[in-house]
C-alpha cells in the first residue's frame, strides 16, 4: 500500500512539476544560422556570467564547424542580484540588436568580460565597443534611456523563470533544457557524434 502511494506520489509529482518548453521565435534579431537547421538552440545568458562567456565561446566554435546545421538564438537572463553589470550589458546588447549589431558587439563584449566586469562603470568601454562596431551612438543613447529595451530584457527573464531557469547559461536544444556547458556539449554530441 505504502509503495503504491509512493509510486503515485512520484508519478503525480513528475506530471505536476513538468515545466513548459521554450518555443523558438525565428524572427529574432539575436539569432544566427540556418532557420531550417535540424538543431535549434535557445541560449539564456547573463553577459557578466563567466560560465556564459565560456558557453558563448564554445557555441561560436561549434557554429563555425556546423554553420548550416545549427540555429542559435540568444535570450536575456541577467542575474542582477549576483552581477552588478548584468542589466547594463544586456541593455547594450539589446540596443545593438536593434541596430543589427548584436553579434558584432557580442564578439567584443564577451571576450573582454573579465576586464569590464571589474570596472565600477563599464559604460565607457561598452560605448567604445559600440563605436568600434559602427553603431549609431545617438540611437544607442535613446535606446538606453528608453523603457522599451529594459522591458524586453525583463520579459525574457520572466519567461525564462516560468520555464524553470534559475542559473545561467541555460540552453534549450530542440526544446530540451540543458544547464551549463558540460551538458550542452553532451547534448550536442547526440546530434553531431
Amino acid at each position: 500500500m505504502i509503495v503504491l502511494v509512493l509510486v503515485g506520489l512520484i508519478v503525480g509529482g513528475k506530471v505536476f512539476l513538468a515545466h513548459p518548453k521554450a518555443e523558438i521565435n525565428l524572427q529574432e534579431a539575436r539569432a544566427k544560422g540556418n532557420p531550417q537547421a535540424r538543431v535549434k538552440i535557445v541560449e539564456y545568458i547573463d553577459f557578466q556570467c563567466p560560465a556564459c562567456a565560456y558557453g558563448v565561446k564554445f557555441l561560436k566554435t561549434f557554429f563555425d564547424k556546423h554553420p548550416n546545421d545549427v540555429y542559435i538564438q540568444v535570450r536575456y537572463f541577467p542575474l542582477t542580484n549576483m552581477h552588478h553589470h548584468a542589466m547594463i550589458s544586456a541593455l547594450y546588447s539589446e540596443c545593438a540588436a536593434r541596430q543589427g549589431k548584436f553579434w558584432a558587439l557580442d564578439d567584443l563584449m564577451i571576450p573582454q568580460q573579465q576586464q569590464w566586469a571589474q570596472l565600477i562603470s563599464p559604460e565607457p568601454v561598452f560605448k567604445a565597443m559600440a563605436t568600434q562596431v559602427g553603431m549609431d551612438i545617438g540611437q544607442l543613447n535613446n535606446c538606453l534611456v528608453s523603457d522599451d529595451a529594459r522591458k524586453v530584457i525583463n520579459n525574457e527573464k520572466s519567461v525564462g523563470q516560468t520555464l524553470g531557469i534559475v542559473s545561467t547559461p541555460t540552453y534549450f536544444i530542440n526544446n530540451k533544457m540543458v544547464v551549463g556547458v558540460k551538458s550542452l556539449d553532451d547534448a550536442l554530441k547526440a546530434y553531431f557524434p
Partner: protein
Amino acid sequence: MYTILRIVIGSILLVSGLGKLLSPYQNFLYVIQAYQLLPSWGEVLTAQIFPWIELIVGVFLLIGLWTWWSLRGALILFGIFVVVVGQALLRRLPLESCGCFGEWIHLKPQTVIVLDSLSILLTILLLRGLSQTKKFSLDSYFD
C-alpha cells in the same frame, strides 16, 4: 525532545528534496557537475533520483513511519553530503553555494559541512533513543 528532533531532521530532508524537485532536474544536474565527482551518466541518474530519496526519507521521518530505516537513510544521506562537499573543499573547487536546497536557501559549503555534521550527530542520538524517537509517530500507532 526526540520527537521534535525527528521532525526537524525530517523537515530538513523534505525541504531539501522539494526545493530540487520544484525545479527541472537539469538545474540540480548543473550543481552536481560542479562537484566533478561522477561520470556523466552518474550525474544524470543522481540528479533525477536523489531529490526523491531525500523527499521520501524526509516524509517518513516526519510521520514516523519505518523510523529505524528512515533514520539509517538520513544518516547515509548526511554522510554523503559531508563527503561530497568535503572533497570539493579539499580540492578547492570554485563553489559559491552548496546547491543543497535548490534555489530556496543558499548556503556556503563550509556552513553545510557544519550543519550536516550536526545532523549526523542528532540522527545518531535519535537512533540511540529509538523508543523515545517513535513517540507521536505512525510506528508507535502500529506497534
